[in-house]
């Protein structure tokens, strides 16, 4: 579960005040809003990459507002994948476990499991500069899932992909959410994208976030837990 309670943040002329919402456990939440409205800022607040001026961030009921990013149990997939430029796909997928000093056998097994699940097993020894946009997003997804986070944050994960890849990636995201049972918050400005994946729709306008009836956009995700 992801909860934001009365979050306020100011950066230069940009400001958000009293933002509150909850994405319940194992639900695919979509945060929709126009470009530049502060969606990425909220993602960064949940990750711990930005400190809010006021309010609390809760992950699975635990107050993580003052925790460093790595202790929050949050996986983060940025817009362009943000690959580690000098690491192979294998190293990227195993990164979180290596940082946590998990045994090598456990890391290897997890990397192979994720690689198979995400369809990147044939890319394990490749470096990012040889990967397509879709492959990068799959690797970024696997890298974020490796340490089994309670929450997965996706910042415009489909925006850099062409139409064919978008469809595949949408299906993959829904499948990953179902199989891993994580709470997801998927940020997008695309209504069609939101309609196709959302189990819960949050719309951000003028600095406010409100839950919106999915029926106004289309059919919700049918995934059950």
């Amino acid at each position, binding site marked *: 579960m992801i909860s934001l309670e009365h979050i306020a943040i100011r950066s230069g002329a940009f400001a958000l005040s009293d933002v509150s919402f909850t994405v319940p456990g194992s639900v695919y939440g979509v945060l929709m809003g126009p470009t530049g409205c502060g969606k990425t800022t909220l993602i*960064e607040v949940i*990750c*711990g*990459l930005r400190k809010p001026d006021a309010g609390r961030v809760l992950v699975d009921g635990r107050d993580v507002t003052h925790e*460093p*990013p*790595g*202790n*929050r149990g*949050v*996986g*983060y997939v*940025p817009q*362009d994948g*943000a*690959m*580690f*430029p*000098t*690491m192979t796909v294998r190293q990227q997928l195993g*990164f*979180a476990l290596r*940082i*946590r000093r998990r045994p090598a056998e456990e890391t290897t097994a997890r990397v192979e499991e994720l690689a198979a699940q995400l369809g990147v097993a044939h890319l394990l020894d490749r470096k990012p500069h040889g990967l397509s946009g879709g492959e990068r997003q799959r690797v*970024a997804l696997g*890298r*974020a899932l*490796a*340490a089994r986070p309670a929450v997965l944050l996706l910042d415009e994960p489909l925006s850099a992909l062409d139409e064919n890849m978008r469809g595949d990636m949408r299906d993959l995201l829904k499948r990953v959410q179902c199989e891993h049972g994580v709470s997801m918050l998927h940020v997008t400005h695309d209504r069609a994208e939101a309609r196709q994946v959302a189990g819960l729709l949050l719309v951000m306008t003028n600095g406010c976030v409100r839950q919106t009836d999915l029926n106004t956009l289309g059919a919700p995700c049918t995934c059950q837990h």
Partner: protein
Amino acid sequence: MTDQHRAGPNWPFWVVIAAVTTAYLGLLFGMLAATATYSSPHHLIRALGSREIQYATGLSLVSCTIAALLSLIVAVPVGYLMSRGRFPGKNTLDTLLDVPIVLPPMVIGLCLLIAFQTPLGRAIDRIVPFTYTVFGVLLAQFTVGAAFAVRQMRTTFDHLAARPEDVAMTLGCSRGRAVWLVTLPAAKRGMFSAASIAWARSLGEFGPILVFAGATRMKTEVLPTTVWLELSVGNLEAAIAVSLLMVLLAVTVLLAMRAVGERP
């Protein structure tokens, strides 16, 4: 009515570009060729065999290498701060960091000399003697070389996205560890360039060394000092030999930088 406008030919543009390039290259190669052919190879080799020049060559190579490594150690954190940091007074600090680049070399030497006449400077000088010593040579080279290395590292970090570092932090790294594991490996070409620039600048440093460390033979004599000393006593062949040696070293560093820069 049809448009009667016709775009002109492109060749005059390229002729002007080629003419300017040829003139500039002519100046560069002309002066190098004139220097290289001024004396015979036999005289040049004999000049390079002198004890003083060998000492200056050795001191130059060692001091430039140490100055380049020290410059890199300083340039990585300062370059990172200037690239990623957002803090009040950043523009002022940015200007201050460029001071060694824009100051006349003699003035840098004079500033160093005066700094070591202050109570703090004298205290440091009593522990490690800098004024008119080899350590002074090193400090003068470092002062200028580090400014160039900082600029290069800042540019390098500016070209590397910050997002991967953020992701590494969400995966369990502290900021320092994220930089160490993700950013620095990606910045290694920039680090090599920064060290090379600092090395090359240090090799050519003369003014600050002359004022702060002096030009004592077999003590604080580096290659530019040798050129000046040999010229001052009218030994043109030795001055030319050392100049050509410096050209060779500089070209080697440039080629190495280019080779590393072009490696995929």
